[in-house]
């Protein structure tokens, strides 16, 4: 067991730090969260800088245009960019972390050549059209229908909670191509251009008052068969393949950010007297211990992934503990800042956004089901 950098890793870290130190001061101020065109421009410009410096798609394979970095280097990248206060992946999230890796793994040479370079260069934004009004936790129950018509699929249905839909160029879309097959076997993965006729995007206001996600209405949208990834009806497997791409690094930068936020809260608490409250102080101490341990769990999972190809300990264990600890962090923050928590501001925004962490990307209940059934081997109920 070893936690320190190898010589190569230390070298990688040093160069990255130098580059960040030089580049970050040149960035424009971050746009207002409600300014979507501004956010798109900011996020893509950052991606372009990463690309020019050779840091785009750091964990993507070299033949997909990535840097082919080891999981450890990827982790160093996430840690250092977060520590330096670099922009978050933002609107590039789905392209870089889900749709892109899926195409890199399952795509034809033509598909890889068409779709991957624009993601790496920050030219095209992707969104993820999986969830539907009737298919959330039970994603495989999705009903958006695709019917083959010559060299195209004609797609009708609706999607919901689609993050970044307003600024996306492409949507990785899961559709039902065989309504008679068992639910996991009749699904197909399609790349849908967001400007295709028949696509309507209706932004949904979140409880924070912002429009982070949208509803998609699809009315006889024609999507070329050439945009299908993998075989017809093989979309479930195609989609799940990507999960291994993260190799334990999902939420790594957020874990670093939370450690920083705990320290920041301790500073605020010392300044405003909340530190004298024994209970609050100890809650902050507990959170410090948890996030430190969660960071170690990230390092553990990444090391296991580097050796075995898959992360150890189970991503579900991490997701469960991390999302709940993070929500607690913002509840403690509210107590530290007192009445400020009732006013709009950085901590209240975090607290509101935090409410989604136990829901998005698999609810905490679903994570517990996974841990109980797949890791502990408990039987399924009747």
């Amino acid at each position, binding site marked *: 067991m*070893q*936690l320190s950098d190898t010589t190569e890793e230390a070298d990688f870290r040093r160069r990255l730090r130098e580059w960040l130190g030089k580049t970050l001061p040149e960035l424009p101020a971050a746009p207002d969260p409600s300014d979507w065109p501004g956010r798109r421009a900011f996020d893509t410009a950052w991606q372009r800088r990463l690309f020019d410096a050779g840091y785009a798609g750091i964990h993507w394979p070299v033949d997909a245009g990535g840097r082919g970095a080891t999981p450890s280097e990827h982790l160093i990248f996430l840690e250092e960019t977060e520590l330096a206060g670099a922009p978050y992946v933002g609107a590039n999230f789905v392209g870089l972390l889900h749709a892109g890796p899926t195409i890199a793994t399952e795509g034809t040479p033509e598909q890889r050549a068409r779709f991957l370079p624009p993601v790496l260069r920050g030219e095209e934004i992707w969104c993820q059209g999986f969830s539907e009004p009737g298919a959330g936790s039970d994603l495989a129950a999705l009903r958006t229908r695709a019917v083959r018509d010559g060299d195209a699929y004609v797609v009708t249905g609706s999607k919901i909670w689609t993050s970044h839909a307003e600024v996306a160029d492409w949507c990785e879309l899961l559709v039902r191509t065989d309504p008679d097959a068992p639910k996991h076997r009749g699904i197909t993965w399609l790349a849908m251009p967001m400007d295709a006729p028949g696509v309507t995007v209706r932004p949904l206001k979140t409880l924070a008052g912002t429009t982070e996600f949208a509803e998609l209405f699809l009315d006889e949208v024609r999507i070329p068969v050439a945009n299908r990834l993998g075989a017809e009806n093989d979309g479930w497997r195609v989609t799940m393949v990507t999960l291994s791409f993260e190799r334990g690094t999902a939420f790594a930068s957020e874990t670093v950010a939370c450690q920083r936020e705990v320290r920041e809260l301790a500073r605020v608490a010392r300044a405003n007297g909340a530190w004298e409250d024994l209970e609050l102080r100890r809650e902050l101490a507990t959170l410090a*211990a948890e996030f430190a*341990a969660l960071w170690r769990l990230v390092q553990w999972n990444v090391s296991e992934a580097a050796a075995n190809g898959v992360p150890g300990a189970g991503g579900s264990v991490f997701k469960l503990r991390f999302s709940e600890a993070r929500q607690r962090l913002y509840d403690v923050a509210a107590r530290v800042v007192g009445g400020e928590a009732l006013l709009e501001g950085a901590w209240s925004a975090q607290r509101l956004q935090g409410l989604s962490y136990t829901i998005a990307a698999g609810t905490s209940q679903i994570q517990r089901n996974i*841990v109980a059934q797949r890791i502990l*081997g408990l039987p399924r109920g009747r």
Partner: protein
Amino acid sequence: MEFRLTEDQHSLQRALRQVVTDRQPSWQELTEVGLFQLRVPEPEGGLGLGLPEAVLAFEEAGRAVLAGPLVGTEVAAAVLGLDGRAEVVRVPARGPVLVPELPTLDHVLLLHPDDSLAVLPAAAVDAAPAAAVDPDRPLWRLDGTPPPGERTPETRRVAADATLLTAALQVGLASRTVAEAVAYARTREQFGQPIGAFQAVQHLCADMLARAELARVAVYAAAVSGDEVEIAGAKLLADDAAVHGARDCLQVHGGMGFTWEARVHRLLKRAWAWEQAGADRERCLESLATRL
């Protein structure tokens, strides 16, 4: 970075698991497998290994809920070069000073709140037997004022290592509670199905595992870094995983869990005892807060 067990560490883990699984090995056996000599330098007859290896060994000891002055004996040998059976005893903020298994000990390592250490010959310790809740860990109550100690870099190491090794015991114990709960949930049937098929039971077990796994990597990392505050954090999480895990394990066992015959209560009683050993919760929290 390569934060995973090496081949040697895996072998050590397997070897120890074999010795302790399903049986309580004698003190002699534990000594022979080198549990107390792991970190003693090779020229002095030890194995010359480090804290990570010691932590792996103590995790197995915790899983087997071994009795005896394990932590003190290891720390006395590794840090102070003392032979014989020893226990680290913290003078708590409140309540009596309790020494486990006093008559079997050679040394008592008495740690004061400021980490000053008094190394006492056990025979000279003035104490009376007290009725302990944990039937496998008899206790003696210290009479009079605890004698003062001194502070050296070594005494701080004694405090930190004792806390870490106790945390390792708790991690092993926490894993044991998960295993026992899952085994029972698979076989006990109600309403025509194993109780483990009920989601309420599944989610209890899932949370138990999540706490145990997080504590485990925290303890491993603290062993690698040796950092005192990281050790405090690891102990905090390990205590929670063990105590909370044992409570949930008892709940999963229903009425059976409330009996003397089922071993579940022994897991909980030991978790409570180890929670107070090394640095207790208050101490860990204050140490973490100081670093913030």
